[in-house]
């Protein structure tokens, strides 16, 4: 596999991820509204901080509607938290897509990539913050997820590397 093929594959993966995130966002919105309207809505679905689970109804201890009715504040918080994470993830993949596209068009050390990596770092840190409070039906806990922090730090380092690369490129362009 050559470089271009890998980049194209990565680009496709990021695009698909963005589409899936947009669909999940729409699904969450429907779930959020539907659980308050219909009592039987989403009986096989469990929602909590960090995502959703789909089970057969008999295995579900507390379905969507009962969670929404028993703890409406927590339920709305979980829905909003998941939506916020999806929005940030959507932008996160958007920035990565921008970087991959610029590498593909041989503009690797363009100024836009420095900004894109900084954005990736900020998005990863935002996800870390959003995941600090974890809500399970009837239970609130505090959780530290290290993965987003590692990604944020890595992206920030890469932004600095690209900054250096951009400076070298500029110097090289002005060398006769």
């Amino acid at each position: 596999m050559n470089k271009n093929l890998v980049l194209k594959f990565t680009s496709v993966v990021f695009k698909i991820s963005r589409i899936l995130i947009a669909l999940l966002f729409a699904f969450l919105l429907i779930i959020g509204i539907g659980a308050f309207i219909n009592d039987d809505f989403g009986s096989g679905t469990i929602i909590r901080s960090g995502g959703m689970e789909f089970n057969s109804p008999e295995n579900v201890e507390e379905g969507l509607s009962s969670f929404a009715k028993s703890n409406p504040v927590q339920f709305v918080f979980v829905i909003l938290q998941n939506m916020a994470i999806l929005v940030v993830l959507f932008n996160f993949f958007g920035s990565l897509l921008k970087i991959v596209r610029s590498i593909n068009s041989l503009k690797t050390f363009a100024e836009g990539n420095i900004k894109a990596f900084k954005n990736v770092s900020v998005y990863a840190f935002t996800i870390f913050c959003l995941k600090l409070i974890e809500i399970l039906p009837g239970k609130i806990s505090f959780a530290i997820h290290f993965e987003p922090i590692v990604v944020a730090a890595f992206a920030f380092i890469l932004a600095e590397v690209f900054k250096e690369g951009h400076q070298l490129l500029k110097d090289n362009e002005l060398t006769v």
Partner: protein
Amino acid sequence: MPIIVNVDVMLAKRKMQSKELADKIGVTVANLSILKTGKAKAVRFSTLEAICKALDCQPGDLLEFRGEDEESRY
């Protein structure tokens, strides 16, 4: 920048055009323009050698150092 490039002065002395020099030394007119306008951050020894050969001059004829005090006078 305190380093002044006097390529245009030497070009005038030798009655040579920028395009002709660019062709002789193997750089683009745009790059030669960067050098002439003082925007260049660095000059390769190979380029300097080619310019000296083409204009039959010494590197000192092309480059000049002007301190900040001298620069403010101009």
